[in-house]
């Protein structure tokens, strides 16, 4: 009996695999750190490339027993998805020791290999199906894309309702379900036994998972706090935004007051710590009913604006545990608005700890909005007297340069302009950041503010800026108007009373700086003067960290790394120089290098194993195949990643934007792939690839030209209206982008089906490299340039579409 392709099983498998990929990112962000999570998962995805190599080499035996081999691979995905993570997390890997402990790289390799297994098994199954049913490649690929689209949407929902480890068990079970469906679709003999076996395995997986716990690195903030006697995790709340752990400390108070003046005498009231993924603590502070207990909030740099004027309406961006709200309340602000992204944190404040905070949020003059900061600022019609950008990221992560690969749309030139537009005349925008040594964040922020003011037509930006610091935090005030003498006098008194230092105000004298918290040189003042003066470009060039302001096109505020300084820092590694390395960026580069090396090996291996006879008799040029599938693999993800970034600015919610854009791309690309099947049946390969590439290039350029104005036009729409608009915008581009891969695969199916797994592997490797390369390129040249590059790559793909060799010509 002729077999039918297992469409449903492939869709389910793809859904589980994509969900697994996103879940792994969550799991490793909790037990390790985000940037290492990124590296580990990127490299584990090379399991795709390895599957191409594996199926290429073992085609004959695999296809002799296709049904069983397919079933085993899907089943192994299910079991290894749970088992390999549990094993991998038990490997005591510590990234901080990687440069001097020879065991650490081996442990990291062990983690890569373990986590590559589930992807390897799943990709094996798909590669086998694509090759075995090579006459129906386009439809199989469509199932794969549909499934993946479904997976990306479902995992967001799953992460809201399940704890991360529970979600892992669910994904394992979906993998087992895919195996059962495959047994049914492929009509496997004795399939009832298969069903029974799968039921037993699923029970085993659930039990194994239920007995396991996440093993967080002992060096994470939360792990450190839990070492102190009397501390306990009171509750945990999981969502795709992060795992919130609420920490009670019964014996020793938390006393969270970063940046507190050396002259302060009081300490904070009792507090509860809320950690996100085991780090970035924010504190919920107890209501004592005694205003004087909150005087510590007047002893930190962010309190300055309240000493310059009496704001009537304040907006806090990033409410966290509520410290900035309390600070505004302490200074008797009549109306306080605050924005917080994480609904679970809001629930903690509003419900679980409502009594603890003295019903802070039920007070009539305080309103807490759920949303993303930039989106709230763009959407609101209110003009504020003071907008405060809170300091919510942790010093540890910030100082180690771990945010280097995180985009932030809060600290770009355009973001500051958006915020300045929502200020009343003479109102202030206040931004507080950690002080790092040598200075980085605060200086880049200063330069960003100068650019924002200049873009808004301010001739002399220095007249509207105030900049000061403690040893720990620095605050920048940007006024919607020229700073007055009275305000300068008030600021001077504020800083002197607290042993803070001024770094910039209009008319500042060099003798006034670097008084209380002394640095080897008055770096802050020197930088501020240089950025405002004629030597700005030269200063940026000479400074050993990158201070050029971030923009919406290159939203990497936390990227400070300069290659030219690497040799100097490396030579200082034994003299305590390593913390000067901006680790996040180097991890990104290390990921790319490893992915490239592994990809080259995986792509070349099947060629090595191919028999001489096969090598010479191949009807398609291998270099064409490799060029085509590399180009398509790179280009697809370049565009997908760049568009996710663009739509974050439109939808204003990183999580929903990513889920929606990813799903839309996959589903509409799936439709494109399904449609290309019709063209394949007619044999119109060349026409189809030409039309799809022209479609992609034309639409790509149109989007680049007009997307900004379209977004501006519809910015004020509600999210419910923005979602269909997003789908309409993505649909045509994604539809065309879904065609090139299955078209070429189908062509290979016609003329050289044995090359399908290899092409699949090449594409898998290219996808891994592409995701990492897109970020590195975006940091260097911006997202628009990444899109242009992708369109060029589609052009390259078009010119290297696999064709049968003309006989006699090699």
């Amino acid at each position: 009996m002729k077999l039918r392709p297992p469409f449903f099983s492939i869709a389910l498998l793809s859904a589980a695999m994509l969900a697994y990929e996103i879940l792994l990112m969550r799991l490793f962000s909790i037990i390790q750190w985000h940037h290492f999570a990124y590296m580990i998962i990127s490299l584990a995805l090379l399991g795709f490339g390895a599957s191409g190599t594996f199926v290429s080499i073992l085609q004959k035996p695999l296809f002799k027993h296709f049904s069983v081999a397919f079933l085993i691979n899907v089943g192994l995905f299910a079991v290894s998805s749970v088992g390999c993570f549990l094993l991998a997390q038990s490997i005591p890997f510590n990234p901080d020791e990687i440069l001097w402990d020879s065991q650490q790289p081996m442990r990291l390799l062990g983690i890569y290999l373990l986590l590559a297994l589930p992807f390897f098994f799943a990709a094996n199954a798909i590669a086998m199906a694509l090759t075995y049913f090579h006459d129906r490649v386009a439809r199989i690929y469509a199932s794969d894309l549909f499934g993946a689209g479904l997976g990306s949407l479902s995992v967001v929902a799953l992460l809201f309702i399940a704890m991360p480890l529970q979600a892992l068990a669910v994904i394992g079970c979906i993998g087992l379900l895919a195996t059962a469906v495959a047994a049914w679709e492929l009509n496997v003999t004795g399939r009832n036994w298969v069903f029974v076996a799968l039921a037993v395995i699923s029970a085993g997986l659930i039990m194994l998972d239920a007995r396991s716990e996440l093993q967080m690195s002992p060096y994470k903030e939360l792990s450190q706090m839990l070492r102190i006697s009397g501390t306990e995790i009171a509750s945990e709340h999981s969502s795709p935004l992060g795992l919130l752990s609420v920490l009670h400390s019964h014996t020793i108070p938390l006393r969270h007051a970063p940046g507190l003046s050396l002259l302060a005498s009081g300490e904070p009231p009792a507090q509860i710590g809320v950690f996100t993924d085991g780090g970035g603590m924010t504190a919920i502070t107890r209501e004592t009913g005694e205003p004087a207990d909150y005087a510590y909030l007047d002893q930190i740099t962010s309190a300055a604006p309240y000493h310059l004027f009496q704001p009537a309406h304040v907006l806090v961006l990033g409410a966290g545990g509520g410290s900035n709200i309390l600070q505004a309340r302490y200074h008797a602000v009549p109306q306080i608005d605050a924005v917080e992204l994480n609904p679970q944190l809001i629930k903690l404040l509003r419900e679980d700890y409502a009594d603890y905070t003295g019903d802070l949020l039920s007070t009539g003059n305080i309103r807490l909005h759920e949303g993303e900061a930039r989106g709230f600022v763009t959407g609101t019609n209110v003009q504020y007297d003071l907008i405060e950008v809170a300091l919510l990221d942790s010093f540890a992560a910030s100082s180690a340069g771990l945010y280097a690969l995180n985009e932030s749309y809060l600290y770009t030139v355009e973001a500051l302009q958006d915020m300045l537009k929502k200020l009343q005349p003479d109102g202030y925008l206040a931004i507080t950041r950690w002080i790092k040594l040598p200075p980085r964040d605060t200086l880049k922020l200063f330069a960003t503010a100068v650019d924002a003011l200049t873009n808004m037509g301010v001739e002399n930006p220095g007249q509207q800026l105030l900049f000061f610091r403690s040893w720990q935090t620095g605050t920048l005030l940007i006024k919607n108007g020229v700073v007055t003498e009275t305000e300068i006098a008030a600021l001077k008194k504020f800083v002197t009373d607290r042993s803070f230092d001024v770094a910039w105000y209009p008319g500042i004298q060099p003798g006034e700086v670097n008084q209380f918290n002394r640095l080897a040189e008055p770096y802050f003042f020197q930088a501020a003067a240089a950025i405002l003066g004629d030597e700005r470009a030269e200063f940026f060039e000479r400074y050993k960290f990158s201070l050029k302001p971030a923009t919406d096109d290159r939203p990497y505020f936390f990227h400070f790394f300069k290659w030219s300084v690497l040799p100097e820092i490396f030579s200082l590694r034994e003299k305590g120089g390593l913390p000067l390395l901006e680790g996040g960026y180097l991890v990104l580069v290390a990921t790319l290098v490893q992915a490239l090396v592994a990809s080259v090996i995986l792509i070349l291996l099947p060629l090595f194993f191919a028999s001489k006879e096969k090598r010479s008799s191949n009807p398609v040029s291998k270099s064409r195949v490799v060029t085509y599938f590399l180009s398509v693999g790179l280009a697809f993800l370049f565009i997908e990643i760049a568009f996710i970034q663009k739509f974050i600015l439109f939808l204003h919610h990183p999580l929903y934007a990513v889920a929606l854009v990813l799903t839309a791309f996959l589903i509409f690309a799936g439709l494109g792939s399904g449609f290309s099947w019709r063209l394949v049946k007619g044999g119109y390969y060349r026409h189809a690839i030409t039309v799809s590439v022209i479609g992609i290039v034309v639409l790509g350029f149109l989007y680049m030209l007009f997307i900004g104005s379209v977004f501006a036009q519809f910015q004020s729409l509600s999210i419910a209206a923005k979602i269909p608009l997003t789908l309409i915008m993505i649909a045509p581009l994604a539809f065309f982008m879904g065609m090139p891969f299955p078209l070429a695969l189908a062509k290979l199916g016609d003329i050289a089906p044995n090359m399908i797994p290899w092409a699949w592997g090449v594409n898998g490797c290219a996808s891994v490299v592409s995701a990492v390369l897109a970020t590195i390129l975006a940091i260097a040249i911006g997202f628009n340039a990444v899109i242009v590059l992708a369109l060029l790559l589609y052009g390259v793909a078009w010119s290297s579409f696999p064709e049968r060799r003309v006989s006699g010509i090699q």
Partner: protein
Amino acid sequence: MNYLKFSLFFFFVFFSTTSIAADDPYAEERAAMVKVIERDVRAGYGSLEKDALDEKVNDALGRVPRHEFVPRNIRNSAYENRPLPIGHGQTISQPYIVAIMTNLLQVGKDDRVLEIGTGSGYQIAVLAELVKKAYSIEIIEPLAKQAKDRLQRLGYENIELKIGDGYYGWEDEAPFDAIMVTAAASHIPPPLIKQLKPGGRMLIPVGSRFMVQELLLVQKSESGEVSTRQLLPVAFVPLTGKR
């Protein structure tokens, strides 16, 4: 007879050297570690641009058996110039950092020093070599107990340890000539500043468990005014020379 004397002399010399070697198989490694630190410091450390440690700090580092302060399985790495994990999520600092921190505190032989965050006890042992009396507080109970046993075993009689919250310092023994805060805190505890003698110094390494980002030196003048100096532990200037 002369032959006998010579043999006896040889016998004693031989046994005394072997007994030293048997007592301290790490003596050579320790001496080498001190040499490495001296070499690194000569390149100029941090914003202070010093080119040598005080001799007494070198001597102290040469005396404290660092291998006794690390877990048995990593003893062979004890004298490498790098931080090492000691369990409980804690580390023993890189010897170079211990050296320059100790030097920065500028302690004298009659001083009384306080340390917040005993950890393995290595830093307080180095300080105890230089001062009259050293006090240390550790918040993690098992670590504190281990450090106490270790320091007792090694014969440090001028060190007092207690388990507990370092935020309020050691009120009964205050004021101190110098304070070292190696435990992470969101801010400098005001009670510690109060417990610092006029003219005293407090040092706080800032960063992660494995990497010290900067050294914060808090100085209290004779008149009681408090100021800080933020120092890089390494000779690094953020601007290249003018072209």
